[in-house]
């Protein structure tokens, strides 16, 4: 095969595309992080609402809010971040609602997972995908 200028350019473009491919989310690792929070207990579906934007232009500040009536604590995980833990809210006796909002960093398009620990010791989860235009982990 003769290496023409056109072919060389195409090869180059292909290699660049490969280099910029986002690394696949390590789903196994995020399950480990979740198991650490739940202690390996089963996680069901239930009364938990996770609100995230569908598309985040800037991964440096992505607004996120969770609401889980009857929860003792809620943890948020980011499946595609270098470190999966994001935040844990522990509610005290004077918390009027078991909901909270904050802003988080996302390295790229990925799933955001919220796990709530209910007062009876069970766990429920909710997950949303967030599309990120510009990642928020430096690099």
């Amino acid at each position: 095969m003769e290496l023409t200028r056109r072919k060389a350019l195409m090869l180059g473009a292909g290699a660049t595309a490969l280099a910029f491919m986002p690394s696949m989310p390590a789903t196994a690792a995020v399950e480990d992080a979740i198991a650490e929070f739940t202690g390996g207990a089963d996680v069901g579906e239930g009364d938990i609402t996770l609100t995230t934007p569908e598309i985040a232009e800037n991964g440096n500040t992505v607004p996120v809010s969770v609401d889980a009536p009857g929860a003792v604590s809620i943890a948020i995980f980011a499946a595609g971040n270098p470190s999966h833990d994001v935040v844990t809210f522990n509610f005290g006796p004077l918390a009027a609602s078991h909901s909270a909002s904050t802003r988080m960093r996302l390295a790229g398009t990925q799933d955001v997972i919220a796990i709530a620990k209910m007062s009876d010791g069970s766990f429920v989860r909710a997950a949303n995908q967030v599309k990120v235009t510009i990642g928020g982990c430096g690099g």
Partner: protein
Amino acid sequence: MAKGVKPRVKVPKSVSAGETITIKTLISHKMESGQRKDKEGNLIPRSIINRFTCEFNGETVIDVNLEPAISTNPYFEFEAKVPEAGDFKFTWYDDDGSVYEETKSIAVN
């Protein structure tokens, strides 16, 4: 102590007893994640606020564990019950051992 750390908290001045209020807090902090590199390619060490608590007259409202994935200038919004007049005490714990505190008094009508 990290430079330029300034807590800001929004709490109503007065409520009726037993009412629910929304509290918004923000603290200026760079929240260096420990993932970024400087111009020479050296990792910039992690420096974040790792815990935030809100108490009302000694009783916990919320206790938050922060990880490096929380954005610069950590912001929180949550709801609290106000059974009586008293003080909300907000505390932020820095990685370097510094503790930043803010107190807001609230009156009951």
